[in-house]
């Protein structure tokens, strides 16, 4: 009986996925799946799954390990759709995996033209209908058949030139369009966000993150510096369907550490931009770090929350910015509501009533080096944040570090790094990391769990009362969301640089975390899950 039932389940779960836009809109109502990079359009990364919970998480064990063959940093966030995991590997490679066993189903190997860069990290897929969307290290967007991994179409985001543009992010699907952004903030590019037609791969619109002189904001750049102004969009945006607005964090201006040739605020670098997803038109912007000199991209998760704010519910966007301040903005208008440091910082005296920083003398990098906190990696970076609706807390992986920033005028050479000098860690100065639980209505830290080193791992929240996170030494960990107690850990052997996900197949909840060359998936022993009773009915 049991065998027959299992076969029945398999037959159900391997039907071709049909991911309609409607399913993406209601991704939170499918907690058994993980349908977008952030898990849902608002990026709260919370799942209403509680089979794994504070009481039994201590028994969590490895279910399977898939070896991608690609060592090094693994920044992917896999999608899970009806029992199948779709993971990008990096280097133009992707794979589909049976999410229960770890057995591969198909793989895709991008066909790179001779001379193109073939290596680079990738952060994941977007999905619509029977198509998966992925960017490649040579700045192409590819659409793959979800059943076979076969290439359907390919769109060029930017003409290939070595040492200039590249692409890493997971595409964001909105309606019938695939939104992507370009990388290259250290390579003297001019950043953009593109939308492509999901059916044909034809470009529907482009938003230049750095305006030309005749556009609004063009006067925030000196002379022709805007042409190499950076402002990459290398982390996936979020989306509010009611407001029909998509929110994207924009990266650093270039050159990173020298501002003499780009005097001005350098819009829209280090800003959050609110765009119309149908046209790419700018609705509003908020600049966190005007005239940035520390590579403090504003690409961190722009999380959408509806918060009780001084007596009424407000639609807000929150972000733990790389500049070490936690921000709350009204997401209809861009109005600044709150800004408070969540990590050590000594560059801004305070933020004024509009949220603009009042600078300290430590802000400017110099020829002989200026010691400034936070470090170039920032208080937070691409490590995903999470929000738990039960505790009403925002959880962020924090880097507590400072750097010495050097500055010198760079000579622009196409295809060469465009930093404007260097940075380094000070000697004999303690650095550490932490998982912090922050009340988003006040910016106050409610609890923190200290890590030995600054962590590059993101967070996941579940209704099992758990926060899953990772650290730089390779520990995947589970914490009590309410009090911050560490309840489970495993040393995965290499630094964790992406965020865990959770999903459910055949009555069993799983936790997946990529680590180095491996994709690790954990579950509870059968006797502790509902799988056994369900199968023996």
């Amino acid at each position, binding site marked *: 009986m049991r065998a027959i039932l299992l076969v029945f389940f398999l037959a159900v779960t391997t039907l071709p996925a049909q991911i309609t836009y409607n399913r993406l809109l209601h991704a939170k109502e499918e907690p058994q799946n993980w349908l977008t990079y952030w898990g849902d359009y608002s990026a709260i990364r919370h799942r209403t799954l509680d089979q794994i919970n504070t009481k039994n998480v201590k028994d969590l064990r490895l279910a399977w390990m898939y070896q991608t063959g690609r060592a090094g940093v693994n920044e992917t966030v896999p999608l899970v759709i009806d029992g199948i995991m779709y993971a990008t590997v990096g280097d133009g490679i992707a794979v589909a995996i049976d999410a229960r066993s770890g057995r591969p189903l198909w793989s895709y190997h991008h066909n790179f033209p001779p001379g193109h860069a073939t290596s680079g990290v990738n952060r994941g897929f977007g999905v619509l209908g029977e198509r998966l969307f992925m960017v490649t290290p040579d700045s192409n967007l590819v659409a793959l058949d979800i059943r076979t991994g076969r290439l359907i179409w390919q769109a060029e985001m930017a003409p290939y030139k070595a040492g200039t543009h590249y692409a890493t992010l997971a595409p964001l699907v909105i309606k019938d369009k695939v939104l992507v952004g370009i990388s290259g903030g250290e390579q003297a590019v001019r950043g953009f966000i593109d939308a492509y037609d999901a059916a044909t791969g034809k470009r529907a619109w482009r938003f230049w993150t750095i305006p030309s002189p005749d556009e609004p904001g063009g006067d925030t750049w000196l002379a022709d510096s805007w042409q190499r102004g950076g402002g990459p969009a290398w982390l996936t945006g979020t989306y509010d369907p009611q407001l029909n607005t998509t929110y994207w964090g924009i990266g650093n201006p270039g050159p990173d550490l020298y501002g003499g040739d780009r005097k001005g605020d350098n819009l829209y670098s280090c800003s959050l931009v609110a765009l119309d997803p149908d046209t790419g038109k700018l609705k509003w912007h908020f600049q966190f770090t005007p005239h940035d000199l520390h590579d403090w991209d504003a690409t961190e998760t722009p999380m959408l929350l509806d918060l009780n704010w001084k007596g009424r519910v407000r639609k807000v966007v929150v972000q733990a910015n790389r500049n070490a301040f936690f921000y709350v903005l009204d997401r209809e208008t861009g109005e600044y509501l709150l800004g408070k440091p969540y990590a050590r910082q000594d560059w801004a005296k305070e933020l004024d009533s509009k949220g603009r920083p009042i600078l300290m003398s430590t802000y400017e990098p110099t020829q002989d080096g200026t010691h400034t906190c936070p470090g170039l990696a920032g208080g937070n970076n691409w490590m995903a944040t999470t929000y738990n609706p039960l505790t009403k807390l925002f959880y962020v992986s924090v880097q507590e570090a400072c750097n010495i920033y050097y500055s010198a*005028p760079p000579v622009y050479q196409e295809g060469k790094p465009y930093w404007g000098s260097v940075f*380094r860690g000070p000697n*004999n100065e303690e650095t550490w990391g932490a998982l912090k639980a922050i009340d988003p209505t006040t910016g106050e830290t409610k609890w923190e769990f200290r890590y030995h080193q600054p962590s590059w791992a993101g967070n996941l929240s579940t209704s099992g009362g758990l926060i899953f996170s990772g650290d730089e*030494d390779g*520990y995947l960990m589970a914490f009590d969301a309410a009090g911050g107690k560490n309840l489970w850990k495993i*040393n995965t052997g290499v630094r964790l640089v992406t965020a865990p996900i959770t999903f459910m197949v055949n009555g069993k909840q799983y936790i997946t975390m990529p680590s180095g060359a491996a994709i690790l998936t954990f579950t509870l022993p059968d006797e502790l899950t509902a799988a056994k009773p369900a199968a023996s009915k």
Partner: protein
Amino acid sequence: MKLPLLVAGLLIPVCAAQTNEGGLDQGKAIFRSNCAFCHGLTAQGGRGPSLISSNLLHTGSDEAIGNVVQHGIAGTTMPGFDLPKDDLAALMQFLHHLSGSHAAESKPPGDPDAGKLVYARSGCSNCHRIGNTGSIYGPELTRIGAARSLDFLRQSIVDPSADIADNYGGITVITKDGRKISGVRVNEDTFTVQIRKADQNFAFFDKSEAKEVIHETKSMMPAYTHLSATDLQNLIAYLYTLRGEQAAGADANKAGGIH
């Protein structure tokens, strides 16, 4: 102590603008932002050796020096710097300029043979090793004369806490049953700590089983302030002669995941 190693991988070449003084100013800018951190603003040494007196600078060809800059020196804390050709040439020009305008570090006064006796008498080999002789507890001294400036050697003897060698920071674990174990912190993460004790054996702990984990701010090496001026001078003279080849890959701390 974990930062220098981590940051070595993040160093980025600077492309300074050409000025009227041409490569010299460019070289100076490159030196200041990439090299001065260890070798001092005037290249007369700090954590790293003086570049004015170094054998390499005086006897090596530009090509040999460039090779060291670009690839680093295995088994030492000298990382490689991936400088563009123009920047490397400008840096070389600046280094030659410095050598011409600063007095070279001369051989120190003192008697190396007498210094060797001071080394033996003071028990240095209980913690340090030269070649295959001595303890692995403290930093290896096989090529310390080539790796450090004279001022730095002196300071390391009389005030070792002023700049503790990378990966030789001290740590003390006090267990719940009251035992106190001190040693060099070999590795550490959020949950565990790995110690090398003075007897050269390892001791491993879960932080959860410790009452307290103390990161020592002072060096594990005692300050040798009681040495007479003559003994100190002789000891430095002896250390200066230690320019042996350290076995390639001898730096155990280069293993992956060690912080």
